[in-house]
């Protein structure tokens, strides 16, 4: 059988095209899956109430994170009952929600989070009187932390 250069090229292009097809379809499926947006999560947490920018909540994050897989983060909101953390540009924006009990000495917590890319992290605290304060910190991410 005679194999021409042209024949091989056409066939390989076709194969690559076929191989890419299922990936494209899967990507669409993932996009269609309901992931709450950052705004929706904030609205659910505050119940539609306006969160004011304020000093009531403090977010400590590095300015530049070389590795998006573990970004150290601490949040503090004196007198808060709950704190919601959101990474606005992550595929799933939710990060964590802390509820503080009677024996929490202060309303602060530190943890490590994943960031997909350079973005703002938003912290919203629900204060004891039911009002909400928010703050944001921008973190520059060198290598994203969501794999693939």
């Amino acid at each position, binding site marked *: 059988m005679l194999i021409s250069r042209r024949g091989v090229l056409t066939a390989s292009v076709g194969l690559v095209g076929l191989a890419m097809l*299922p*990936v494209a379809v*899967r990507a669409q499926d*993932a996009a269609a899956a309901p992931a709450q947006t950052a705004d929706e999560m904030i609205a659910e947490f505050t119940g539609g109430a306006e969160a004011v920018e304020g000093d009531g909540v403090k977010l400590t994050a590095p300015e530049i994170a070389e590795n998006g*897989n*573990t*970004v150290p983060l*601490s949040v503090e909101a004196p007198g808060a009952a709950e704190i919601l953390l959101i*990474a606005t540009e*992550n*595929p*799933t*924006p*939710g*990060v*964590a*929600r*802390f*509820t*503080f*009990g*009677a*024996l*929490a*000495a*202060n309303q*602060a*917590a*530190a*943890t*490590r*989070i*994943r*960031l997909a890319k350079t973005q703002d992290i938003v912290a919203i605290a629900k204060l004891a009187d039911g009002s909400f304060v928010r703050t944001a910190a921008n973190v520059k991410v060198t290598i994203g*932390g*969501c*794999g*693939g």
Partner: protein
Amino acid sequence: MADNVKPRVRVPKTASKDEVITIKTLISHPMESGQRKDKDGNVIPRSIINRFTAEFNGELVVDATLEPAISTNPYFEFDARVPETGEFKFTWYDDDGSVYEDSHQVEVT
């Protein structure tokens, strides 16, 4: 159940009454985000710890809801007040229904 899940908690053994102590917790867990793909392009299903609680003598210190954005081997640090001798109880809830527990005795001197 994820393999080799091992909680590690650092709590002082003694404290004075109403002293504020810092508690550090770490649990080994892959926290698979549900975003990654294996080498065949299939999405690896999400498998994370979705909730963590710390209690002292049955009273809540902190209750955290976790999302996939929490890093592998979730780490938490927070402060608690110790009103009396008692026991801290830490609980981690896995997506697959497993529950991991650890407890530490604190003596008020």
